[in-house]
């Protein structure tokens, strides 16, 4: 039987297939799903911000930031027997929920850039993404098949 594991905001979890990872209502946050389908080890990280070095809280909350959370997720998966060279990624989120006059608020776009940069630095290919635009997404990751399911309030459910 597969367990359903919920990942909160600014948190990350790893598991063995066929467990299912779920994170609710990503807005400008991003959910990063990683899978090593040979070792059958998966993980999901729900990041809020791009860069831990730009924040005084960075070292205290590494799981909140793209640049520090992704390496942590990789490490925890490796501890369960996964190999970085086999990992593949699917990502979702990074929406702009509100259009405000101030440009610094475009955190969704900056999150997408930071996630892609960090995955590339770790040589992990992105197999699918559902990012940007202006709506929230719930992300479900099935580690037995590698399917990422996205639920949105006005758009129904899509699989990637």
């Amino acid at each position, binding site marked *: 039987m597969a367990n359903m594991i919920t990942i*909160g905001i600014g948190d990350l979890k790893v598991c063995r297939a066929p467990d299912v990872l779920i994170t609710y*209502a*990503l807005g400008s946050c991003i959910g990063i799903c990683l899978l090593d389908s040979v070792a059958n080890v998966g993980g999901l990280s729900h990041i*809020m911000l791009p860069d831990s070095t730009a924040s005084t809280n960075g070292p205290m909350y590494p799981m909140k930031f793209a640049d520090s959370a992704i390496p942590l997720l990789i490490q925890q998966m490796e501890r369960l027997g996964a190999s970085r060279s086999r990992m593949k990624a699917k990502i979702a989120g990074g929406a702009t*929920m*509100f259009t405000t006059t101030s440009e610094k608020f475009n955190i969704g776009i900056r999150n997408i850039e930071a996630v892609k940069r960090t995955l590339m630095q770790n040589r992990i290919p992105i197999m699918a993404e559902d990012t940007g635009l202006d*709506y*929230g997404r719930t992300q479900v990751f099935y580690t037995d098949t590698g399917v990422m399911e996205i639920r949105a*309030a*006005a758009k129904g459910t899509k699989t990637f």
Partner: protein
Amino acid sequence: MLKNYEDLSPNAIDILKEIGNIGSGNAASALSEMLGKSITMRVPDVRVLDYQAVIDELGGPEKVTTGILVLTHGDLEGMIMFLLDDSFAKVVLSTFLGKDNVNVLEIKQDMTDFSAVVEMGNIMAGSYLKALGLLTNMVIDMDVPSMTVDMMGAIMNYPMIEFSEVGDKVLLINDGFEIDNVSIKSNIIMIPTVDSLNLLMEKLGVTNG
């Protein structure tokens, strides 16, 4: 100096509660005037909660909610956000535009519907801030509101991230009103920046936070 909401004394929280009370009363009477309908108000319940508790309390992360965001400037830098359930948009659109049974999720696709709801948010936010300004003798300006209808959790990403330096807690004003026997749940979140929170306490004569 206060660093965030967690530093507020019970006394300061009581004063903020009272301000929330008066502000939301003003917002509701502005709504009543615009709609030309009488409104029965519930006594608001004002609390300082962390984000997760707010999301859980208001129906969970996937609950579809109308969020109206207003950024404030001047003496009070920060934001207020109205979180309203579907019946709010429905009452506004049926009163102003004669439209019934609107699918709230489709409001964003219709510019007229969208503008009508944003304008109501504008008026409610304006009267809320006017009351707050009068009480505290602060000059408060506001941006044109921005609105979305989406999952509560996704909407809350905005204050959680943009105002993360203020901490994990927010002032939640949970009120509600009745128009034409339709009950409307309304919640207001207020987040001043740390500097503005300190100025607010100073203006209210709260010395030790």
